[in-house]
Each structure stands twice: as C-alpha cells, then as structure tokens.
C-alpha cells in the first residue's frame, strides 16, 4: 500500500470517527441551545437508550435479566418503544428536575445533570443488567469490499452507515428547526426565554420536546456505537469524547458540532499515527482536548459559536 492511500485511509477513518463524535455532540447542542443546560448525562442517555433497545430486542425481562424470546420485539417495534421510553424520560426529567430548578445558575443545572447521569446509569443496570450486550439490528458489518477493491482502502461499513445516518439526522433537524412551527418556537426559546414566554410559548412543552429530541439523538448515537463495539458501560464515556468537539464547534451551533467532530476525528487519527509513536502512544485521550484548547485561545467562543458580547 502506498504512503498516500495510507494517509487517505487514516483521514477517512478519522472522518468516520468524527461523525460518531458529532452524533453525541449534537444532543448536547440541542439541549444547550434551548434550555442553557449543559447536559452531562447525554452519554449515559445513549447508554440507557441502547440498553433499552437491546433489552426489547432480546425480550429481556426487566429486573430479572433473563431473556424470554416470547417477548422479543422486531427491530422496528423495539425502536419505536425505545423512542417512547425516551420521551417519557424527557417528561420525567422536565417535571422532576428542570421545573424545580428554573432560574438557577448554570453550574447548578450542570451538577443536576451529573446526578441524572448517576440515576440513569444505575437504573439502566438494574433494569437490563450490566453485562456487555451485542446489538444486532442487521446493520452491515465488516469492511466495505467495494472500497477495498476499487481504491484499496479499508473502510468499515458500519461507519459509512453512521455517516449517512448522521447526515440524514442533521438534515431532518435543520428542516425541523427552520421550517416547522415548533422549530420556530424552539429557536425563540433559545434566543430569549423571557421574550418567548411573553409571546405565549410554553417553556415546559419546549423543554420536553428538546429533551425528547436529544433522547432520540442519543438513541441513534447508542445504536451506532453499540453496533460497532457492543452496548456497555464505556458507552457513557463517549460524552467525554464529545466535549472537545463541543468547545471546538461552539456550544450553540449545530454545524459547529458536525465540523468540530470531523476536525477532532481526523486530527486525533493523524496525531495518533504520525506523532503518537514519538511520545509513547495512547494520546487520543487528551489530544482532542489540547487541540480544542489551542483553538479556543484564538476563538474563545468556538468556531461557530455566537460571539460573546460582554456588557457591564
């Protein structure tokens, strides 16, 4: 294999990994835009959604963790039920956590989502068991033969599926935000809570919708990551992967989440391959953060974030 196609392969694989990061970052951005909450539980939500989905697919009985094929649902039904579960979860979160915490400082809300992450993690394990689960939705696995034959480049099929899904998801979200009534209300709330309230937009409804959408995005992220490496506790740690993507792209920008994810994905891959051996490897844990930090020093609001204007 030539040096150049090796480079292309690295870039492609970085881009694909970046798409995965973007999927998680997207959920963060949605919630932050609409409610100003920095939702640390997004990764755990992906884990919880994944666990629920696998549980429904295998007919696992909650609390007991034995599989009964009689209760197993077909994939489309399982996904629908999981979406319903995420919506119920959103309603519960709004009722029990966000509503009493209205008007609190950002850091308090952030801490509350950390508490939420604990609760969801514990609940997921109690309901569905904490062993590693295989998610089998019939998504294509292994390397893409076509790419391998034509360009002699190794690309995983599941990553292509993830990229396409992310593309569709972003398009749908963009249309939803720009063209629909609810989308307009969402943007109004993101802009100014008070003003939105005064023109008759119900904040609690909007929050339920936003958290539901974030839950569905979490489900998609859970499916993609789960299909790649199984549903397990480490899935909740992808939140930590998404954070540098967020600060790079800006907390409030959906395109930022995508572009940031791609930059981080490619940068990480190239750094690991070309710089990693000189410093002892395993740098992917912190490289993304350092990259984001350097970016931030020049653009404190991220690449696409709204310009921070400070007045006294």
């Amino acid at each position, binding site marked *: 294999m030539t040096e150049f196609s090796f480079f292309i392969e690295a870039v492609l694989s970085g881009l694909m990994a970046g798409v995965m990061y973007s999927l998680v970052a997207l959920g963060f951005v949605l919630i932050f835009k609409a409610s100003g909450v*920095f939702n640390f539980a997004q990764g755990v939500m992906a884990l919880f959604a994944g666990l629920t989905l696998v549980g429904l697919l295998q007919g696992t009985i909650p609390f007991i963790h034995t599989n009964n094929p009689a209760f197993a649902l077909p994939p489309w039904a399982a996904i629908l039920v999981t979406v319903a579960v995420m919506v119920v979860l959103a309603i519960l979160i709004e009722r*029990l*956590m966000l509503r*009493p*915490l209205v008007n*609190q*400082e*950002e*850091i*308090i809300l*952030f*801490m*509350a989502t*950390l*508490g*939420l*992450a*604990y*609760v*969801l*993690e*514990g*609940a997921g*394990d*109690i309901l569905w068991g*904490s062993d590693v689960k295989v998610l089998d939705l019939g998504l294509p696995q292994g390397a893409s033969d076509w790419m391998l034959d034509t360009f002699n480049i190794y690309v995983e099929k599941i990553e292509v599926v993830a990229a396409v899904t992310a593309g569709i998801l972003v398009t749908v979200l963009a249309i939803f935000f720009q063209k629909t009534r609810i989308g307009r209300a969402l943007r109004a709330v993101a802009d100014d809570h008070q003003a939105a309230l005064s023109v008759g937009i119900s904040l609690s409804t909007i929050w339920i919708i936003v958290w539901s959408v974030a839950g569905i995005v979490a489900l998609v992220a859970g499916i993609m990551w789960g299909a790649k490496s199984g549903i397990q506790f480490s899935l909740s740690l992808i939140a*930590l992967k998404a*954070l*540098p993507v*967020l*600060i790079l792209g800006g*907390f409030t920008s959906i395109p930022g989440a995508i572009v940031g994810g791609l930059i981080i994905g490619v940068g990480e891959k190239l750094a690991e391959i070309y710089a990693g051996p000189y*410093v*002892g*490897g*395993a*740098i992917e*844990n*912190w490289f993304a*953060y*350092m990259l*984001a*930090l350097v970016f*931030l*020093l020049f653009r*404190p*609001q*991220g690449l696409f974030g709204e310009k*921070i204007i*400070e*007045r*006294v």
Partner: protein
Amino acid sequence: MLYREAGQFKTSYAADQAIFPIPQDRYMLAGILAIAFGVVPFVLNDYWVNAILLPFLIYALAAIGLNILTGYCGQVSLGTGAFLAVGAYSSYKLMTGFPEMNMLVVFALAGLITAAVGLLFGLPSLRIKGFYLAVATLAAQFFIIWLFYKVPWFFNYNATGQITVPPRDLFGFRLTGPEAVPAVRYLVTLSIVAVLALAAKNMARGHVGRAWMAIRDMDIAAELIGIRPLRTKLLAFAVSSFYIGVAGAMMFAIYLGAAESGETFGIQQSFDVLFMIIIGGLGTVLGGFLGAAFLVLLPIGLEAVLVEGLGLSTNFAEHVKLILLGSLIIFFLIVEPHGLARLWQITKEKLRLWPFPH
C-alpha cells in the same frame, strides 16, 4: 438566644475584622478543635481513621482548594483529579529522592509544585470563560494523568506503574507506610487541614478574597475598579492548586499508601470534589467540610443500610446506591442550591431569636 449579638460591642477595627467576629463562633470552633485534638485521638481505631476521618479531612482540604477557585473566584475547574495526582506524585518523588526530608517540608513542596502546574493550566482562563474553561481544564485532567502513566520517571521505573509510599517518621513517630500509628496519621492530617482551612478563611476575608469575589461576580466591572484580572485569576489558580496538591500528597502518603494515576486520580475524583463544594456551598470554607462529610459518609451509610439492613446483594446494592446518590444530589440542588453551608446560616439566623421569636 444562642446566637444573640446584642451587647457584643466591638471597640477596635481588629475586633470588627476578626476571622470569627462573633464569640459564639469562636467558642464553638474552640470546642470542636478541643474535641478533635483532645478526645478523638484516644477513642479512634483503625477502621475509623481509614474509612471516615482521613478521607473526610483530606477531601475537605481538596474541596476548600477547589472552592477557592470555583466558589470564590468563579472559575469552574474539572481538573481536580489531575492536581491531586500532581501532589501525590511530587510527594512520592521528593520522598524517594530525598529520604531525609521532613514530611511537612515534603507536603509543602508538593503543594508548591502543584501550584506551579496549576498556574500553567490557569493561563487559558484569561481568555476562556464559563463552561469553555471547564472543558479546557479537562485537558489538564487527561494530559497529566496520561503523563504519569506514560513517563516511567514519575514512578521510579518500577514494573507495576504504581507508586507506593516508603515508611517515614515525623518527629519520631511513624507517619506513613504499613506500620504507621493511626492516631499519628489522624493528628498530622488534622493539624495541616486546620491550619490551611484557617488560612483560607483569612484569605477570603482580606483583600485577596475580595478581589476574587469581584472577579467572580463580574470580571469586567472588577477590572474597571482596578483589580488586575491576570494576577487575581492566576493567584486563585495557584492557591487553589496548592491546597489540592497538599491534599493529594496526604491522600497518597498518609491515607492510601499506594496510588496509580488513572485508577486513583481519574475524572471521577474531579466530579466528586466538585459535588462536595456544590452540596456543601460555593464560596464558603465551611461548605468544604460539610460537603466532604456528606459525600464521604453517604456512601458508607447507604452501603450499611442496603447491604446489612435490607440484605441486598452487593452488586444490586451498588446500582441502588448510584441511583440514590444521584437522586439525593438532585434533591439537594432543588431544595437548597446554595448548599449545606447556607442551611447552617439559616439555622444561625433562627437561633438568634430562638426560643422567643417575637
């Protein structure tokens, strides 16, 4: 009635600006210190020291440190675990490199080294604010942990990658290592924590603390009234890191005895200490102690109730514990977002008039 201030006249500026201006507070603090120094060392046993007293005191110190940065100066940091690690590893290098060095000097130097590292990672705070800064401090967290894991010099090239504390004495008493005397470990920790906590209270009261709070409340306005953001923020990072570094050194040398960078000082530590100051109360020294007590005692209490009281299996109890811990955190944030220290303040207000409220 217990807290009535009527009739307490202050006749000098010194009295008015004392760290504890109200005599009741002074008496109570003296009482607590008398019990902590005079009674507890004679009744404690190994379990109490290892499971409750040492973690409580050391986490309280770390929480005070983080509170200086986050509570007083308003800079959210998620790098506490890494700074604890810097304290631990520098104390290890000092102890093995200079075996004759007095342990108190080791702790002080470990704190100073951590302060220097904290200063370095505080530099971005001049341009980055809020959550962007919080995520930026995660860079410190992951980078430093990786460094201690990858560079063998830090753990003296041993095969396990762990650091283990060598036995050392302080004033003729065995302080570290397996043969350490529980009472000595407790008393040394208590003394250091008490002195540093008092120093923190003092700093918060003086011009340094006021400058921090001005920066926290609105940095542009603070700049306009003549507070230099660069110096003030970096000072907060340095002082905070010093406290956390000393806490890390004590955590390694006195409390745990052995440590491994990723296992002991992972991101979970950062979140735990942040929980402590938020549940305890942002911007108070008392909050550090209350929050540490809450988060050290709660898991032990829950474990006792769930495993021994209800007879659940350890695995199941672990998950229930997680759920309860999360719910309790949310519950406390909803009930009193200003933390346990605020609850104590409200109690004091009530005690002022009690039992004749009218």
